[in-house]
């Protein structure tokens, strides 16, 4: 009835009933007759629809605070990042090749990199709109990098385990470091640039302008 689970519904009813009993007792203590005291107490429930509507809105369980402030914005950011990867691949966008001092080459996808600030901005903006604090906005904005970092750690761990304990040292840490730099650190910096305008509180901005 009120968008609350049955147990919550019973709690709300019990609390409102207790309030009405208190009102009744207060009126009786002031010398009001029993039936009049009941009538006066029940006047508080005069607009039952308004009460039900407001309670439903306050208690709706569809989404809790953390989901609104963090998980949905983070999901929006990750989804947009995946979409950007797909678009980049579909456009058959050729990477720029940068030769490094150690005779290795770095592949840079400018279009993908230019899109990273938008990912950061999207996550941070959605979180701010939902009332997220600064840390929540930052984490939502950087979530695609967090996911990628977790994926790399899992792959590195799996590779390390497959090499066996004694062979762990054979793992190419240089390659891992380059991967982290190219796939995590640089895109994270770009995402952070996009998220930064939304890390400030809107109220603070109003006060500064005035």
């Amino acid at each position: 009835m009120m968008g609350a689970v049955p147990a919550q519904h019973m709690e709300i009813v019990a609390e409102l009933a207790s309030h009405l009993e208190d009102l009744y007792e207060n009126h009786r203590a002031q010398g009001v007759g029993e039936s009049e005291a009941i009538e006066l107490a029940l006047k508080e429930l005069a607009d039952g629809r308004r009460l039900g509507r407001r309670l439903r809105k306050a208690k709706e369980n569809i989404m809790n605070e953390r989901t609104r402030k963090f998980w949905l914005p983070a999901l929006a950011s990750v989804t947009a990042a995946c979409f950007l990867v797909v678009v980049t691949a579909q456009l058959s966008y050729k990477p720029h090749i940068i030769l490094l001092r150690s005779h290795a080459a770095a592949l840079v996808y400018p279009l993908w990199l230019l899109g990273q600030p938008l990912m950061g901005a999207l996550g941070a903006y959605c979180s701010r709109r939902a009332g997220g604090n600064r840390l929540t906005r930052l984490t939502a904005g950087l979530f695609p990098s967090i996911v990628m970092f977790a994926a790399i750690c899992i792959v590195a761990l799996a590779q390390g385990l497959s090499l066996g304990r004694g062979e762990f040292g054979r793992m190419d840490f240089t390659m891992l470091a380059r991967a982290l730099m190219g796939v995590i650190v640089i895109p994270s910096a770009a995402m952070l640039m996009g998220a930064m305008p939304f890390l400030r509180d809107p109220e603070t901005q109003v006060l500064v302008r005035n």
Partner: protein
Amino acid sequence: MKKRIRSKIARGSAELAILALLSKQSSYGSEISKRIEEDSGGALRFDLASLYPMLYALEKRGWVKGRWQANRAGRDRRYYCLTPAGRKKLAPLRQEWNFFFKALDRLAGVSDA
């Protein structure tokens, strides 16, 4: 003569009124309503339809916490107290209202009314 503030204006102040009250002492619904009315000299009054949705919204935000307790008469009541997050929220909220009143005073000269 007691003059009640119009509900449209009063509604915006419910959050501050409840948090300020609970910062002094934890309390239950009808007591909160009574104390707000008394401490405001009758200017503010929140009925069931205004008070409880606001209390539940504050609880959802983590600023207040409600807990059932049996009172001396044996009837269970749900007592609300301010959480550390709510206590942290109170000072900026007071500043915000202070800023608002000063701005309104500059604009409409309310202090001379």
